C-alpha cells in the first residue's frame, strides 16, 4: 500500500519523513477494552444526567457539562468516561497515523448519530444544542 502511494505521489515519502519527526509514536496495539469494572456505573450516572440535560456530547469526542457544573458524582462519572475515551482515541489515532484530537472528532461524528432526541450536543466551535 505504501509503495502504491509513493508511486502515485512522489512527495509522499518527503511527507512521511517529516511525519517521523513529529511526536507520533505508533503505540503497540492491545485488544482489551479500556473500560474497567466501575465504568458501567459511570455510564449509568452519565446516561441519567444526559436524560436530564445536564451532560451532553461534544464535537471533540468527549462528554461535557451542558450547564457548566454538576454534582460531584456526575462530574466524577464524566471525568472517568472521558479518560477512558482519551485512551481509546490515542490508540485509534496511533493505528491510523493521526492525532488523538482527530480521532476524537471522528468519534464525535459517529456519537452524534447515536444521540437520543431531547439530549444535548455541542459541535466544534458551536453552542450546546438540543437534538
Amino acid at each position, binding site marked *: 500500500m505504501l509503495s502504491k502511494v509513493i*508511486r502515485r505521489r*512522489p512527495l509522499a*515519502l518527503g511527507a512521511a519523513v*517529516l511525519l517521523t519527526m513529529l511526536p507520533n509514536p505508533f503505540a503497540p496495539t492491545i485488544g482489551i477494552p479500556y473500560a474497567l469494572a466501575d*465504568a458501567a456505573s459511570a455510564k449509568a450516572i452519565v446516561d441519567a444526567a444526559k436524560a436530564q440535560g445536564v451532560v451532553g456530547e461534544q464535537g471533540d469526542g468527549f462528554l461535557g457539562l451542558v450547564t457548566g457544573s454538576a454534582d460531584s458524582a456526575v462530574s466524577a462519572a464524566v471525568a472517568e468516561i472521558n479518560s477512558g475515551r482519551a485512551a481509546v482515541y490515542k490508540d485509534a489515532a496511533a493505528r491510523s497515523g493521526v492525532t488523538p484530537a482527530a480521532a476524537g472528532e*471522528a468519534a464525535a461524528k459517529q456519537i452524534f448519530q447515536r444521540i437520543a432526541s431531547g439530549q444535548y450536543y455541542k459541535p466544534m*466551535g458551536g453552542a450546546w444544542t438540543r437534538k
Partner: protein
Amino acid sequence: MTNQLWRWSCVLPGFIVGAALAGCTPTVRVEVAPINIYAKLDADVRVRLDREVQSAIQQNPDLFPQ
C-alpha cells in the same frame, strides 16, 4: 527493472524535498484552530480512521452510546 528504476526516481526526489523542508523549518507547525482537524485529513486516512473509531466505539460499550 524499469519498475525499480521508476520507483527510485520517485522516492529520491521525495526524500530530498523532505530533507530540504526539514532543514528549512526547524519548528513544527502546530494547528491552532481546534476546528476541522478531522476535515483536513486525506480522504484515505479519514476512511481508515472512521473504521478504527467505529470498532473502538463498539468494543467499549461502557464509554460510548451504542
